[in-house]
């Protein structure tokens, strides 16, 4: 009954070995999959430097690992207790050995430390002077991107900077220098495929540069990687690498103001007279995606930048198209969307709380800066900071009850009869009907 005699149970051990083997086999199989957000894509100069370091680290680490585990296993097998074995010899230490395993690791660390320090100074040097400047502002829980080298003067003489939200366009082959600031708490800016992260620290200004020089036209997922509150996980963004020509075209388009559908001198619409019904006036539709806009295509459109205005959605790999499901309880009558009236939508927007937070250049009512700038919201592929695809169905639900689609956000619930998940109060009297929401969506979709 000596309990020590039951210690070695080959059956148990074999099961463990089998389980581990299966686990590692699964792991290896998983490594063969597609990993769009991997840090190993090597699309930028900085990431190639990091990759060199990483390979050095993982190489040295693997070597040390194999060495240590090998002698450990050898010791375990060779010196396991056997029956009738004499007591082991007393060994209390060995100075030579101990000096060896102090000095050799020190040498290995030296081999790592030198390129580490070199890379630190290289990647943290000032960016080249001709770099594209992008100002990144972290908000709870979305990203504001500004292009200070590109400005335009508005009708009132005000100089504006090109500003967008949650979608970053970068020209291939040109160094981009990010200036990182926070509007509230600490965030961290990261596009794993392009470079390491840099924290976006309140009351601090940080910098990060790299050159997307080994990439084609592509889309990369980015994310906030410093815990910043309730919807930290939903603070994502996209980085589009495009050719310089496409970038120039895109930024010229971003400089344009939106077309105001509201003011009196609106062009006479063909189907005038029933403004609350389908066939809304004047929109600058590029690709006509909804019937409402198709109807508007006949109206005289203002001059709009031709060419590249947004990354073609059909070229976006599936990994960059959000697949977040709707909240189960959030219902919307999608049939109404086809009948959305953009002008009516603008009127609702201009007379409700939307004006408290958002800017739409070209619409004099919309000049607030608390939320994302919506001037060109229809040229973005996602809404809610990379959380949902930007289409009518998602926009409608977002307008109806944004807090239920993205926990913690300050955008209120607008849908009539909806429950605000924060206040837990029903929005009964002041809310929008689904038809009104459809009008708003129609308006938002004109903001190309």
């Amino acid at each position, binding site marked *: 009954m000596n309990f020590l005699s039951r210690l070695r149970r080959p059956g148990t051990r074999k099961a463990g070995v089998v389980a581990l083997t299966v686990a590692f086999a699964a792991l290896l199989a998983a490594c063969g999959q597609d990993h*769009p957000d991997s840090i190993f894509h090597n699309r930028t100069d900085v990431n190639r430097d990091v990759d060199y370091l990483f390979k050095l680290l993982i190489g040295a680490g693997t070597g040390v690992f194999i060495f*240590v585990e090998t002698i450990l296993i050898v010791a375990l097998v060779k010196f396991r207790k056997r029956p009738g074995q004499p007591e082991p010899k007393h060994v209390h230490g060995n100075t030579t050995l101990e000096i060896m395993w102090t000095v050799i690791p020190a040498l290995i660390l030296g081999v790592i430390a030198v390129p580490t320090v070199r890379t630190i*100074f290289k990647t943290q040097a000032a960016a080249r002077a001709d770099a594209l400047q992008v100002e990144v502002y972290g908000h709870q829980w979305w990203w504001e991107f500004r292009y200070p080298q590109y400005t335009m003067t508005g009708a009132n003489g005000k100089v504006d900077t090109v500003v967008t939200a949650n979608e970053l366009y970068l020209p291939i082959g040109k160094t981009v220098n990010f200036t990182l600031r926070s509007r509230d708490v600490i965030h961290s800016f990261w596009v794993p495929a392009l470079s390491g992260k840099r924290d976006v620290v309140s009351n601090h200004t940080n910098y990060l540069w790299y050159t997307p020089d080994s990439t084609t036209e592509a889309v990369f997922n980015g994310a906030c990687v410093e815990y910043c509150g309730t919807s930290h996980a939903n603070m994502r963004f996209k980085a589009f690498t495009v050719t310089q020509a496409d970038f120039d075209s895109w930024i010229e388009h971003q400089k344009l103001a939106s077309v105001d559908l509201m003011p009196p001198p609106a062009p006479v619409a063909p189907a005038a007279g029933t403004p609350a019904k389908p066939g809304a006036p004047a929109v600058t539709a590029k690709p006509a995606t909804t019937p409402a806009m198709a109807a508007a295509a006949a109206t005289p459109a203002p001059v709009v930048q031709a060419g590249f205005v947004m990354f073609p959605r059909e070229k976006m790999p599936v990994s960059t198209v959000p697949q*977040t499901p709707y909240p189960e309880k959030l219902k919307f009558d999608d049939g109404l969307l086809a009948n959305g009236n953009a002008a009516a939508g603008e009127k609702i927007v201009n007379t409700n709380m939307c004006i408290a937070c958002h800017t739409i250049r070209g619409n004099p009512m919309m000049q607030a800066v608390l939320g994302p700038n919506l001037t060109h919201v229809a040229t973005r592929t996602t809404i809610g900071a990379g959380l949902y695809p930007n289409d009518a169905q998602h926009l409608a639900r977002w307008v109806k009850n944004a807090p239920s689609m993205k926990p913690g956000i300050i955008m209120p619930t607008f849908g009539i009869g909806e429950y605000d998940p924060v206040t837990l109060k029903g929005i009964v009297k002041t809310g929008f009907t689904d038809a009104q929401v459809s009008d708003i969506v129609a308006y938002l979709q004109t903001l190309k």
Partner: protein
Amino acid sequence: MATAAVGVPYTVADDYANSGLWSWLTTVDHKRIGVLYMYTALFWFGCGGLEAEIMRWQLKGPNGHVVTAEMFNQLFTMHGTTMIFLVVMPLSAAFFNFLIPLQIGARDVAFPRLNAFSYWVYLFGSLFMNTSWLVGQAPNGGWFGYAPLTALQYSPGLNIDFWMLGLQILGVSSLAAAFNFITTIINMRAPGMNLMRMPMFTWMAFIVQFLLVLAFPVITIALVFLQFDRFFGTNFYMMTAGADPLLWQHLFWIFGHPEVYILILPAFGLVSEILPTFSRKPIFGYPVMVYSGILIAFLGFGVWAHHMFAVGMGPIADSVFAVTTMLIAIPTGVKIFNWIFTMWGGNLRFTVAMKYAISLVALFTIGGISGVMHASPPADLQQTDTYFIVAHFHYVLVAGSMMGLSGGIYYYFPKITGRMLSEKIGNWQFWLTFIGVNLTFMPMHWSGLYGMPRRVYTYDAGQGWEIFNQMSTAGALIQALAAFVGLYNIIKSRKSGEIAGNDPWGAPSLEWSIPSPPPDYNFAVIPTVTSRYPLWDVKSPELTTDVPHSRVGDEHNTIAIGGKTVGSFQDSMAAGTPEGGLNPNARQASTKVSLKTAEQLGIPMPYPTIKPLFVALFMVLMFASLLLIHVNKETMGLVAVLTFATAMTFSLYLWLTSPLEPSH
């Protein structure tokens, strides 16, 4: 062989109630306090584990919705806080309490009532912090609580208050205990036990107490700033008033990095006890093991900013902290090699305790290697705040600390309870743990490098992360199963485990010379120590003849190991080399022994007292009353704070004016 089903190995007739709830509430016995620490920590281990399981269930697939975002954030905050402050630290404290006096040949710690106070503060503090679940406002700022997210502006609820006050309460417990143990180790070692004869566990514990004493004041200051901000409107972390959020980060990590060594060094110490015993060889390079522990602790204060490589400190600071961090790998590596060479040439017996110790050596190496990878800032910028670092520190804290502490439980359970834990069930637990830990945390290296951020309650489909998350979730479930097996083992073995005897493992240090469980006075006669391995000098002299600090020739007759006057176990102990590592005679003998009480032996022992419990209770209530201020009951809060402060002071007065022990 062994006479099974024999009752308690000895009976002690104390003049005070010796069992029952009251005896536990009033105990000042370091062993009982250690036991309280152990079971409380294991309880919170279950809670922290449950939090982890819920999170893993949420993350098993993309866009999971088991819990809400807010709930998930509370879960990961409390998982981290619980596992660090309510599990690993107190479980280490359980061993400090139980072992330090036994290993140095003392009858108790220097301040037995302060020791009880430390425990009660820990218990009430941990209960206070977890009360937050009942009001639905558990802490949600992360265990690191970065400013300014914890400011009133961004966290108006009680969540952060619970966390901030709870940590301050727990800090009181840790600091009181640390001063107690430092005093104990410096002053109460048995005659002849100079510092370089102390067992390795006591050495590591000694180092940890200094880390605690030096690190905890720093976070206390950071927390007091936060408390003043939240309660009294100061501007330490108020961004609109121009505060610098890096103030919090520097203060937090100056505490936070030494904290890592506070968590791992006790496990290192336990492993350094277990490996020699089951290799039947002295620890390889004792002095180097001591010095490397000291060096790790010392360097640990100079590396904190490696947690902050992403905040933009500039290339010079990054380089300095990169190099200092890499330096720590050297003493840590020395420890790993010394452990392996402790086993090399030995006579290895793979008990469950030994298996845990070996897997610490094997798996901590992985955490150490990924640690060096994090030490290189350009690489760290890709790895930090992803699942890669989650993998890294779980290899350090689960595969390191928890494996070591689990091994310690298997190794010392016989000494604590007088009964062996079942090796059969223990093997199940070990292998399930081993598989579960690797299956949970190994895939996280990949999910991290493939871009998955940490602290996310959800992730999108199509990112290639699903398989790794499924594996991690499966591993977490296996770990839960292992925990239940372990719980079953403890419950079963406490009742019907084999009787352990004094020295079931054939171990070298003093605690194994006395009965299991030890009498309240530990040593009937304070032993005189002339070597590092006093029991081996007696029982297996061939193992120690060449060890420095053993004076050849005199260990056999002059080492007086306690207890000659109290029974026959001394004879059994001298009965020769254990067969198969066990001395069956010892077990039989110990069952016959009826030990004398402290009174009969004329040993003055401290009186049991309830007063430390009251001081702790009122202190915690005093802190808790501050919450009332944030539920808009300022006056009531102020009155409550003052009332409990008065009650605490009064209890403290009663405590300090009552005698510690019978006059002698």
